[in-house]
């Protein structure tokens, strides 16, 4: 078993799909934090077989939309005074702002400077650009 110091006040991002923690680390811009961050890769998980975990010492605002979009199985654990204060499960967010980009060359997002790339979750469960209704395909991005 691998032991990492437990944190007193901060967040644990648990049940990350094994092997994807570094991508989340960069997307959440955790490299810019001054506080301690531990990335634990490929540990055993009863639920998923293997998982990654990120522990952050200190209170920060996390973009839960990015996390929910990347991996809705993730659990956020809030630690206060060494104890679990709250557990949050993620779901697919209804809208995504500047997380993914529209690739439709006919869309206004391809021409207008400073425009946010906003996607909303469709009834079919895919993300569509609010401007042109084009479905986002991760493989084409």
């Amino acid at each position, binding site marked *: 078993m691998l032991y990492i110091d437990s944190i007193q006040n901060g967040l644990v991002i648990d049940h990350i799909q094994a092997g994807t923690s570094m991508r989340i680390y960069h997307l959440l811009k955790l490299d810019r934090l001054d506080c301690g961050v531990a990335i634990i890769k490929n540990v055993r998980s009863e639920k998923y077989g293997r998982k990654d975990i990120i522990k952050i010492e200190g209170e920060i605002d996390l973009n839960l939309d990015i996390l929910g979009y990347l991996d809705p199985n993730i659990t956020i654990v809030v630690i206060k005074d060494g104890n679990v204060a709250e557990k949050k499960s993620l779901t697919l967010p209804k809208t995504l702002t500047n997380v993914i980009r529209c690739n439709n060359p*006919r869309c206004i997002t391809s021409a*207008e400077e400073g425009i946010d790339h906003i996607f909303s979750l469709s009834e079919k469960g895919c993300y569509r650009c609010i401007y042109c*209704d084009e479905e986002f395909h991760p493989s084409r991005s």
Partner: protein
Amino acid sequence: MLRHLIDPLDLSKEEVISLLDLADDIKQHPENYREKARYKKLATLFYEPSTRTRLSFEAAMLNLGGSVLGFSDSSQSSATKGESIADTIRVISAYADICAMRHPKEGAPLRASHYSRIPVINAGDGGHQHPTQTLTDLMTIREREGRLSDLTIGVCGDLKFGRTVHSLIKSIIRFPNIRLVLISPEELRVPDYITEDELKAKNIPFTEVRSLDDAMAKLDILYMTRVQRERFFNEEDYVRLKNSYILTTDKLRPAKETLAVLHPLPRVNEITLAVDNDPRAAYFEQAENGVYVRMALIIFLLGL
């Protein structure tokens, strides 16, 4: 409250019906509306050429006693200097009371509505939506058939880039017992966001066919569209597909006597001139109705 018309579903079904009722009344009694929008100004921001839509918007505002300003080509606007939609609409909001925007980029009117202090009407955005054409279509269908429900509607031609088709489908399937026959070549099928999110998700009966002849006998409405050169990136694809479906008097033979043939216009060759003399041709009265629904819409959005 500030209202815009960007997507046909921005209007509830009840609002659509009341707009059509108002448009009918305007058509019957235009004299009652001559001063309705006096001292009001409509800005027509047309970044792409248009004849019917722009002129019918201008005629609508003039018929209501208002005035019109704007441009009819992006080369006449500061878009050529690189001005953003957001900046343009913030400025226009100070000059006019309402605006109609046509833009080659999909979603441009939505972008404008996020920054506007006046009602924004989508007058066509790329191959995406054209909600005021839909009001025109619905008015004509109701006039011809006496109802907006229990109809088998064939839409034919370029269903991929045909913005009038997308808006019409989204709007008319809110009425009961609508059956759709989607007639197009494989390459120009209706986009997924219409078939998946609208038709399948709402259990609307529809079939996709490749031949106009197979569908003709069962239709109450035949909505023809043009294969538009400006929507294609590739000239070869345009040339190959432009003559896919052409309506002739021969093809109309098996059709019902009560069929109404609609077309948003302009046509190129997809409806032969001989069809114009058939009583089932409804496209010129459809173009006329465009003025009445736009008058009704201006009254509604300005709260007059």
